[in-house]
C-alpha cells in the first residue's frame, strides 16, 4: 500500500476522525489569527468558512487514496471530482475576496444565545439515554423557554406537558417509535 493510501486508511478510522477534528480546531484558530491580520473585517467570516472547506476537501481527498481500486470507474473517482470542484470554487472565491468583488459579511448579531441553545441541545440529546426521552424533553422545553425570558408558567407547563403527551400518543403508541426509556423508567 502506498504511503498516501496508508495515510488515508489511518484517517478513515475513529482515531483518525478524532485526530482530524483536533487538527481542524487548531487549524481554524491559526487561520482565524492569520485572517485577522491579513483581511479586512468585512470579509473575515466568509474567508474562514472557505478555509474550513479547503481543509475538509483536502482531508477527504487524502482518504480517497485508501479506496480499493476496481473497475473502470473506481469508488474514488466521483468524490475526487466533487473535491476538486470545491477546491476550484474556494480558490475563485478567495481571489474575488482579495479583489473585494465578493459581497461583504453581514452584520453580526450576538453569538451568545445560539451557542447557549446549541450547548443545551447537545446536553439534552446526550442525557436522553439516561433520563429517558420524556423526562429529558420536558426539562429541555421548560429550560429553553425560560432561557428566552418567557415567564407565563401556565403556558409553559401546558406546552411542555402537551408536547410530551402528543409524542407519547402519536409516536410512541401509534407509530411504535422506541424512544429511550432512561434508567428511571427501567427501575
Amino acid at each position, binding site marked *: 500500500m502506498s504511503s498516501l493510501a496508508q495515510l488515508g486508511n489511518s484517517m478513515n478510522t475513529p482515531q483518525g476522525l478524532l485526530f482530524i477534528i483536533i487538527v481542524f480546531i487548531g487549524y481554524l484558530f491559526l487561520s482565524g489569527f492569520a485572517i485577522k491580520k491579513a483581511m479586512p473585517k468585512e470579509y473575515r467570516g466568509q474567508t474562514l468558512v472557505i478555509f474550513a472547506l479547503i481543509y475538509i476537501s483536502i482531508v477527504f481527498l487524502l482518504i480517497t487514496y485508501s479506496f480499493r481500486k*476496481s473497475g473502470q470507474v473506481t469508488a474514488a473517482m466521483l468524490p475526487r471530482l466533487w473535491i476538486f470542484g470545491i477546491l476550484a470554487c474556494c480558490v475563485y472565491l478567495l481571489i474575488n475576496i482579495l479583489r473585494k468583488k465578493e459581497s461583504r459579511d453581514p452584520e453580526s448579531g450576538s453569538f451568545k444565545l445560539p451557542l447557549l441553545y446549541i450547548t443545551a441541545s447537545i446536553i439534552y440529546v446526550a442525557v436522553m439515554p439516561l433520563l429517558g426521552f420524556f423526562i429529558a424533553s420536558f426539562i429541555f422545553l421548560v429550560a429553553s423557554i425560560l432561557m428566552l425570558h418567557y415567564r407565563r408558567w401556565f403556558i409553559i407547563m401546558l406546552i411542555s406537558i402537551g408536547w410530551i403527551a402528543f409524542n407519547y400518543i402519536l409516536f410512541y403508541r401509534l*407509530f411504535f417509535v422506541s424512544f429511550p426509556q432512561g434508567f428511571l423508567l427501567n427501575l
Partner: protein
Amino acid sequence: MDMVNHLIQGFSSLFGIIPILAITAGVVFGIWVGAMPGLSPSMGVALMLPFTFRMPASISLIMLTAVYLASNYGGSITAVTINTPGTPSAIATAFDGYPLARQGKAGWGLGVSLVASVVGGFIGIIILILFSKPLAAVAVKMHPAEYFSLALLGLTSVASLGGKNGIKAFAMALLGLLLSTIGLDPISGVKRFTFGAIELFDGFNFIPALIGLFALSEVFERLETKLPNTSGTLKGAKAEGEWPKIRDYWKLKRVTIQSSVLGTVIGIFPGAGSAIASFLSYDLAKRTSKTPETFGQGNPEGVAASEAANSASVGGAMVPLLTLGIPGSASTAVLISALMIHDLVPGPMLFSQQPDLVYGLFASMLVANIIMLFVGLLGSRLWVKVTLIPQQLLIPLIISIAVVGSFAVKNSLFDVFVCLGFGVAGWLLKRYGFPMAPIVLGLVLGNLAEASFRRAVIMGGFGVFFTRPASLILLILCVVFFSLPFIQAHRDKKKANS
C-alpha cells in the same frame, strides 16, 4: 370509448359512505404524516397498510393511495409555517413559502400550496388515465446514461437557486454531492468516509440533514437577533395575512400547469422521485417568470411550481406501478405489497382482468384531490395560527420537533446528532452567504447521479452519454441551463457599466 365506460363505472363504485370515508381517512392521515418531519409518505402508507388487510381490495387501495397523495401536500404545511419541510418534495416549497409567512402572508403560502397541489394532482391523474401505457413503454427504456443526465439537469437548478452567489451555490452543491458519497459504495462495497462508524455505512440519513439545514439553522439565525421581548398570547390572535382570491390563483395558472406536466413526466421514471420533480419545476418556473429576481423572497409562483409538481408526480409514479409492476418510489413499493396481499398482480394484465379496480382507483384519486381541497381549506385556518405563536415558545418547539423527527427515522440518537451538526453548519454557512438549498440538492441527487454514471460507463463506456440521443439532449440542456444565469449576469453587469 372503453376507457370512458370504465371510468364512469369507477366513479359509480365510489357512491357510498364506505369509499368516501376511506378516502377521507386516507387524506387526513396523509396530510398529518406529510406535515410531520421525520415521517415520510412511504412510512404513512406502510403504517396504514395493516389496517387495510381485512378490507376489500378496492377500498384498501383507494385508502392507501389517498394517504400517498395527501402526504405530498402535507409536507408543504410545515415548510411554509416553520421552514421545516415535512417531506423532501416540499423543500422547494419552503424557498418561497416560508418567506411569505415571514412577511405575514402565511395564508398565501398555504392557500397557493393547497390549490397548486390539487390542480397538480388532477393533471397527474388525467395524464395517468390517458397515457399510462405509452408512457410506461418509454419509462422502461431509460438507460442509466439518461438517469445521470436527468440528475445533472436537476443539479443545474443550483445556478438559479444561488441567486447572486453563483459560485458559493455551486460550491455548496458540490459539498452536498461529496456528502452523498459517505457510506458503503453501492457498486464496489468500499467504505467511503465512514470513519469506522457503522451508522455511516448507509451514509447520512437524508431527513435529519434536511431538518438540520432548514429548521435548526433558521432557529439559530433567529436567536442571533434580539427576539421580541413579549409574553405573547394565542388568545385573540387573528389569522395572519389575507388569503388569495380566485383571480390570484388564476394568475398562477401557467406555472401550475407547466409544473404539473413536468412533475408527472419526471414521476414516471422509477427512482427519479417527487423531490427532483419539485426542484426542476421550481427552476423552470424561475427561468420562465417575468420576475425571477423575486424567487426565494416570497413569490407565490415558486410555491405553486413546487407543489404542483410534487403532487403531479404521484400520478406519474403510478404509471410504471400499474402498467409494469415496477415501483417508481418507496411509497409505490408499499402499494405493490398492498396489491399482492389482495392477490392482485400489477402489470398489463391488471388493466384487462380488473378494469373496475383500476379505473375505480383512478376515480378515487380524483375524488381524493377534491376532499384534500376541502380538508386543506378547513385545516389551513388552523395551520396559519402557528405563525402567531410567540418566538419564545416556537423556537424550543421547533428544536423538539427536529429531535423527534430525526430520531423517528431509524430510532437512532446518531441521527439526532447529525441533525444538530447540520443545523450548526447550516447556520454558519448561511450567515456568510453560502445558500442551503444547493447542499440539499446535492444530497438528494448525489446517489442517483453517481450510481447512474458508473452503471452507464460499465455498460457502454464514457461515450455512452453522448451516443444516446436522449442523454445528449439532456446534457445540452444542462449546459444551456447552467450557463444562462451567468451569461445574463454578465450582460446585466455590462449594461450597468455602460
